[in-house]
């Protein structure tokens, strides 16, 4: 890959390292922080950002390397930035719903077996 | 990597079989899912492990096993993945129906939900 000019190479390397670092930090946070609402921050912010950096790096790299397809990174990034918040938000909702129902995850089934009858729309 | 992969496949097989031997429909579904992973990996491995050589014959390169992974097992496994997906779906439907009919998710029906 000596096709790349040094400065570009440096930027790419830097972006990669930073991105990896962010991803790592995010995951670390997920692993270490105290309760769910705190943990949520790690992946949703750090990791996403990290992936963004990595994508940028890849974009630059392929731009610098002729004869390879490029541009799709943008697409990926776009997708990611649309979807990541959605899933994050949904998980928050879910977590809240569970807290309020004061139901430890594994055992909804149990408690439900003697819970309110199902009303079903349609 | 060969040894590790073989062991992993073996583990999948063992776990899948054990789960498939459980008495509840859903456990059976889980087991068969694991089993299909294992079988797909095994068939795929029959083409030997060739990292970094996707079976795409690009301009300028001559297609040969030396420079490309074996495409045949891949083709077989691709359809196999889809088919096993269909099988999972079918089993789930049957599980739902059988429970609706027997008020139990025991594979032999009856015996209540146990849960």
């Amino acid at each position, binding site marked *: *890959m000596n096709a*790349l000019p*040094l400065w570009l*190479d*440096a930027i790419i*390397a830097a972006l*990669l*390292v930073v*991105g*990896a670092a962010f*991803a*790592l930090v*995010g*995951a*670390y946070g*997920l*692993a270490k922080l105290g309760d*769910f609402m705190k*943990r*949520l921050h*790690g*992946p949703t912010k750090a*990791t*996403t950002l*990290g*992936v963004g950096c*990595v*994508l940028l*790096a*890849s974009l630059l*790299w*392929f731009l610098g*390397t002729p004869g*390879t*397809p490029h541009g*799709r*990174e943008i*697409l*990926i*990034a776009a*997708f*990611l930035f649309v*979807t*990541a918040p*959605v*899933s994050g938000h*949904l*998980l928050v*909702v*879910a*977590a809240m*719903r*569970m807290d309020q129902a004061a139901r*430890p*995850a*594994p055992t*909804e089934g149990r408690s439900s077996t003697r819970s309110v009858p199902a009303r079903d*729309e349609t | 990597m060969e040894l590790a992969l073989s062991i992993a496949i073996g583990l999948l097989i063992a776990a899948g079989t054990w789960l498939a031997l459980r008495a509840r429909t859903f456990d059976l579904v889980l087991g068969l899912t694991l089993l299909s992973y294992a079988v797909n990996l095994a068939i795929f491995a029959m083409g030997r492990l060739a990292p*970094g050589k*996707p079976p795409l014959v690009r301009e300028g390169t001559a297609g040969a096993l030396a420079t490309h992974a074996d495409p045949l097992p891949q083709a077989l496994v691709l359809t196999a993945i889809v088919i096993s997906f269909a099988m999972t779906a079918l089993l789930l439907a049957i599980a739902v129906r059988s429970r609706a009919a027997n008020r139990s998710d025991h594979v032999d029906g009856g015996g209540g939900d146990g849960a």
Partner: protein
Amino acid sequence: MTAAVLPFVVGALALAMLLSLLRLLRGPGIADRVLALDTLYVCTLALLVVLGIQWRDGVYFEAALLIGLLGFIGTVALGRYVERGKVIG
């Protein structure tokens, strides 16, 4: 230079995924596990991109693309299941 850092990048991502796995196994809440799974997917996406650079090969971009596009469906579905008890209303 890029070549030099790539192994560390891959390593870091791998470590990140192992950490997520840890959370997935520890729980405690179901939401934690789902979140961890989601993170695993995202990290895999990053890993694929990096591997793409390492192998100077764009073939795996489609995989990354699909994770970015559809990977979160699983998360959404699980979240929905926990939240409402039914995935598709």
